[in-house]
């Protein structure tokens, strides 16, 4: 439970998504990271609020599951959503999933995943977590340097979730920040493939 940064890696020129993922895995293994058992999965389902008489614009509810934090992937949560069907309706066809393998490199934990929507691969996500520290401001330089060592020039800037907090960079981070970053990434990838007008707002 440390500071997490989720970023998107663009697919390399002339290569498929799977090849770029394999390239990343090889780079990590050359660095000395150790592959962990099992895969991780983060997915996101969208629900619209059904229109009510008051005529307010439909709000969107995102339900996210993460295999690393089992409480949110409790099966009963989905059943709860079914029960709330009268208020929210599942927007089928907008489920985004990110699956991949995990690596561990001393105190860092790295997850490389393929983002798929309707079983078509849309992009690659990389999540880097530095476990010992909880304050993003203190360890951002260290994380950036680590990401540079295997991502090359694709290193992202400081995620905005950390800067918009009231105390700024020095507030402790938690899993909600991680999920927010994933959500932003999924929305960005959704928008990329649907340039025509759609009523999915971020």
């Amino acid at each position, binding site marked *: *439970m440390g500071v997490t940064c989720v970023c998107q890696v663009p697919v390399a020129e002339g290569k498929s998504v799977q090849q770029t993922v394999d390239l990343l895995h090889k780079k990590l293994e050359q660095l000395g990271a150790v592959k962990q058992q099992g895969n991780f999965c983060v997915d996101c389902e969208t629900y619209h609020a059904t229109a009510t008489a008051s005529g307010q614009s439909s709000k969107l509810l995102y339900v996210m599951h993460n295999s690393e934090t089992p409480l949110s992937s409790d099966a009963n949560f989905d059943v709860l959503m079914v029960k709330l069907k009268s208020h929210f309706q599942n927007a089928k066809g907008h489920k985004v999933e990110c699956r991949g393998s995990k690596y561990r490199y001393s105190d860092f934990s790295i997850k490389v995943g393929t983002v798929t929507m309707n079983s078509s691969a849309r992009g690659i996500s990389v999540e880097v977590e530095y476990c*010992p520290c909880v304050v993003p401001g203190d*360890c951002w*330089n*260290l994380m950036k340097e*680590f990401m540079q060592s295997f991502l090359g020039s694709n290193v992202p800037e400081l995620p905005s979730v950390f800067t918009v907090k009231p105390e700024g960079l*020095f507030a*402790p981070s938690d899993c909600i920040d991680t999920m927010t970053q994933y959500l932003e990434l999924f929305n960005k990838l959704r928008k990329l493939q649907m340039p025509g007008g759609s009523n999915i707002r971020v």
Partner: protein
Amino acid sequence: MADAVNVGVNLDAFNHAISGVHALRSSVTRVFECLRDGLKNRESLERREKQFVHEFQEHLQAVNRDLNELERLSGLVGRPSESHPLHNSGLLSLDPVQDKTPLYSQLLQAYKWSNKLQFHAGLASSLLNQQSLKRSANQMGASAKRRPKVQPSTLVLPPHYVDDVISRIGRMFPDLSIELFRPNGTSAVLLVSLGKVLKAVVVMRSLFIDRTIVRGFNENHYSPDGKLDLWTKSQYQVFQKVTDHATTALLHYQLPQMPDVVLHKAVPVAVPTLRSLPSGRTSSHLERLPDTRGLSRHLPHVAPPPTHVAPPPETPAACSPAPRDTCRM
């Protein structure tokens, strides 16, 4: 092939002797070829017989020459040394099944390794004895008569004095907070929190720091029965290293007569270094950690830390002797 038998063997002469054997073999082959071919086709029988006998003689003389040459060369080769380096175990080297179980060469490697280990251990012990880690106020080698029967006064300090010193140090820095417990008798156990970076458990023996364990801010510092956990190491390598550095520092910076001087001087130096721990300053963050050995320049009257002992020799498991082919003649 020459590792077991050495010194007496002249490898050059050995090679010459082998080519001598080849020459002998070919001249013997020529003799038999001559016999096989028999009489050659010439004008008269006499001539043929004479020719045959002449050739036969020549070949036999060649064989004689080569044999003498070989005898001379084999005299130069010399005998293998009679004294086996490891007495009876040297006889293992004569085992022809050398490829499957290279026992003798492994045995030699193990012997060389243990000799090296003994040598390094001697060096290490002499270096370590220079820097004594005994933290008692008694002089070494005091005679039995003068050996004090009274406990040194620095070990028996009233608890409230210890509390005062600790609270004074705790007030030095705004983000440094110290909580004091006394779970086992009069020894104080401190839980020091440094900002949101780390928490350290420091076990004291009156004013001497006995042990310390540094863990991350978000780790669990309490054991399952609710007491402060004094033994579990941090799960992060960074903090394990910091614990090692801190332990080295507390063993090194010691003044048995005036323990509070150490606390007052060393803590203000160590704290800013530890506070900047997560961010790091150099380009190679992942390798370097704040070096507490730098503290020595702030405490000039304490001797500098010992230099590293030479790295340990290779273990027999690490160096795998390649199986040597025995020479088959």
